[in-house]
């Protein structure tokens, strides 16, 4: 009984977050703010369903299910990345004017040639010529 209530509670909570997220997607005024609605809704809404699922398997089926943890992990990995790319696309495409600027510089996406991962990319392997075949034709 308690378990049932708990599971239902999480499911309802997830549904509410999903509804709020969808509503926000329609209601919020501009792309940058609109971005918040679905990303938060995905993590929290889907998270609620997953917790409900884990509880269901543990209580009703009598075994622990780890799939949900993996799904959570992948959601936590992918949702921010897709949000980042949506934001970047918006910055690049619409050039919104009312955004605060990063201190002392411009948004990286707006400056061709910048690379936030430059240090990470300069790994221990020396760079080889890109197209080794090119040299042969001469």
């Amino acid at each position, binding site marked *: 009984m308690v378990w049932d209530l708990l599971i239902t509670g999480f499911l309802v909570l997830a549904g509410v977050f999903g509804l709020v997220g969808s509503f926000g997607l329609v209601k919020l005024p501009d792309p940058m703010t609109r971005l918040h609605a679905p990303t938060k809704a995905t993590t929290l809404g889907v998270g609620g369903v997953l917790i409900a699922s884990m509880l269901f398997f543990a209580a009703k089926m009598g075994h622990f299910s780890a799939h949900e943890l993996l799904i959570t992990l992948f959601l936590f*990995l*992918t949702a*921010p*990345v897709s949000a*980042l*790319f949506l934001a*970047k696309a918006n910055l*690049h495409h619409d050039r919104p004017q009312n955004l605060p600027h990063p201190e002392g510089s411009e948004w*990286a*996406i*707006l*400056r*061709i*040639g*910048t*690379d*936030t*991962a*430059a240090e*990470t*990319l300069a*790994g221990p*392997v*020396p*760079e*080889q010529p*890109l*197209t080794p*075949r*090119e040299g042969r*034709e001469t």
Partner: protein
Amino acid sequence: MSLLLIVILPFLGALLPAVLIRSGRGMAAAGAGLATAAALAGVLAHLPRVFAGEAVVARLDWLPALGLSASFRLDGLAALFAILILGIGLLILFYARYYLAKADPAGRFFTYLMLFQGAMLGIVLSDNILLLLIFWELTSLSSFLLIGYWSHRPDARAGAVMALVVTATGGLVMIAGMLVLGGIAGSYEISQIVKAGPAIRDSGLYPLALGLILLGAFTKSAQFPFHFWLPRAMAAPTPVSAYLHSATMVKAGVFLLARLWPALSGTPEWFYVVTTVGLVTMLWGASVALFRTDLKALLAYSTVSHLGLIVMLLGFGSKAAALAAVFHVLNHASFKAALFLSAGIIEHETGTRDIDRLGGLRRLMPLTFALATLAALSMAGVPLLNGFLSKEMMLEEAAHTTYLGGVWVLAALTTLGALISAGYSFRLIVLTFLGQEREDYPTKPHDPAIGLWLAPALLVAVVVVVGLFPALARPLVAAAAGAVVGADMSGVVLKIWHGLTPALAMSAIALAGGALLLTQARRLQWAGVALARLSAPAVYAAIMTGAEAGARRLSAALHDGAMARSLAALVLVALAAGGWAFASAGLGPETRAMLPVPPVVAVGWLALIVASLWLPFLHRDRLLALVLIGIIGLMVSIGFIYLSAPDLALTQITVEVVTVVLMLLALNFLPKQSIAEPFALRARDAGLASAAGLGVGALIYALMRRDFAAPTISAYHVENAYSGGGGTNIVNVILVDFRGYDTFGEIIVLGIAALVIFALADVMLRRPALRRLIAWTPDQPRAGDAHPLMLVVTTRLVLPVALMVGVYIFLRGHNAPGGGFVAGLVVSIALVMQYMASGLAWAEARLRFDYHALIGAGVLIAGLTGIGAWFAGRPFLTSAFGYVTLPPLEKFELATAMAFDLGVFLTVVGAVMLALASLSRLSHRAHHDERKRGETG
């Protein structure tokens, strides 16, 4: 030696020169010669049995139900031709070794020559007409390569194309004739067809079969009016002319006439068509030869004339004429090859082969003079040389054959032919060797070294020996003639003196007339001019121009470079075929009830339809279209999951991801908006697409509402997947076992496709395409921060997990959804993510393996797994499986199918990555400079 081995030997020998040419052309020629000599020895070893009237046979059934078998038969006729092909082939190889200039690629020459030799040997030894046809076309192809050997010369290229067009077209026509013939006779085996002679001649289809087969034979043997390709083929190196265009290939048509002689000859149609064509060819060729000043052209036309003579003899339809024809094949091959080789010597040593610029070579080149003169006198039909013997037999037969109602017609015309033949032979000797020595030879003439004169000397030896002692040639000629007429001819006698016969008188007239013709040559110049004007193959040119224009128009109409048009043509044909099939057969009653449609499914179905309908309206915005395609793909995958097809769903999702990435890369270079086509085109495409799509939908609906007419194969798969293939995942067992051959072919195709993409992209990376690529300005502004830190870190974090998933899917594949194909795609996606996040440079710098090698390794592993089954005595790709227990692990299954699946896996990874990396390399190159500008600016 088995006949199969004899036929294969020249083809094996064709490989040797290509390998041995690094050790010099002497070695290359020796390698080719060794194979030829071995094949010749094999044929000679069978001679006693052949002379005894037996036939040696060898047989390898391939598709007996279709009448396709590799059956070979060596009888007298085949032995005569095989000895000519291999014996003269050996001499030609030796001669060519010294003839070819240093700059000529000799290895290629010997390889082509051996290919030709194998094809020709195949023709004469085949006992199956379908097999014969394959070799027939192979001789056309190898002759094309040999004529065009000096490919820098326009006349060689034109001559090669003309020879190929004429002889290969004839061959194609003959295929139809052979099929008709086989249909009448009820067998494609020559030995059976020959026995069915009377039935064939009585059949209503006989004239059709005869006409088609004769067309093939006449084009190959350069009979009038298809003779014109032969003189043009003289652009080939002289050894080729001597070998193909006098001794062997042009005799293939004659051979075929002789081979089918018992089946086809003896009717008025045969007599009049074959005799007339042969007679006209003989007279025409001889007349043209009389006025040619180019030695090789003269010899070419004389060859045409002599081939006409042989064809005419076969047309007579009598046994004695067939004997004469076979004998003349042998004699003509020996003296004409010797003459061609002598002409080659003359050109080699004097720098010209124009007899107007020669003359007086008698003292300068005494040896060549002796050889060429003996051969030419034999061609003229002078007694004590072999040409005399067969010509005498020919005249004798002509004098006894009624033609157009009179005996004298043929006698007169053949005497005329022999007379002109004597005339051009004398002219060749006189203008080349006799007369005053000149001062203006292009180079100083002298006799060649042994390398060049030995081959013609041996041929001339045959000319003289057979001429003096015809009895020596008797067994071979009698056996060959016996094989032609299908009767025992061992009783025939070949001798020089027959007494005072009409033929002797005709021969004397011909020789005297020939000498007279020589003295009157100047007065007859006008005739030569008139003939030259007539002989221009204007019709051929007109046909070729017309065919070319027609082909161009047709291909332009079918595809003009726009994909929409070629797809429209394809879809239209498919629609027409489907419509025809539907209209010509009824539709049975519906036997299966509709399944209920749950609401969720209906929603998904609606979403799919809306997305599909939306696509045509939005497709001009390509990025949006790509998004829609992605949605449709995902909906289809969900459909697969709903219909319990997890394997398909997995494949669909992974393919969807790879496709979208691939298209995004390509979209980088494409305009983001496509141009609107005119309304008519859009209407056409819409109509076609709707008809085809709805048609396929209706077809599937109709299929699913009915029980199948025959039991399906599914039950077999379900029953045998575990017991036969060792797997519980039937889809995977089908892929790697039941239909492993298909999968093997498919991964090869996949690999080839990836290599093609690589090749196309590689071309773009070279000048001048590279310059254009660098100068290319993107059609929309570029973004900064190409490798966001967040993505870089995430993808690197995910990489090992994704690889593990790939391995997991691969390992479970045989028993649960998954398998090599899906695993390959998953791993590819994991790798592509690295490219996308960290950039091409970073990814390639860390790449430890080559995608090309990966594709090769995959195909190789799959192939070797298949071959492994042979060692167990099973057919290709039979799988085996067993259970293994290793102490720390549980009992697990090992199947050879897994090794095959590994091949699939590797090929898929290699192919997908090669395609994606090629495209990303392009875009990297295009943006490289731009990025540099950004850094400095």
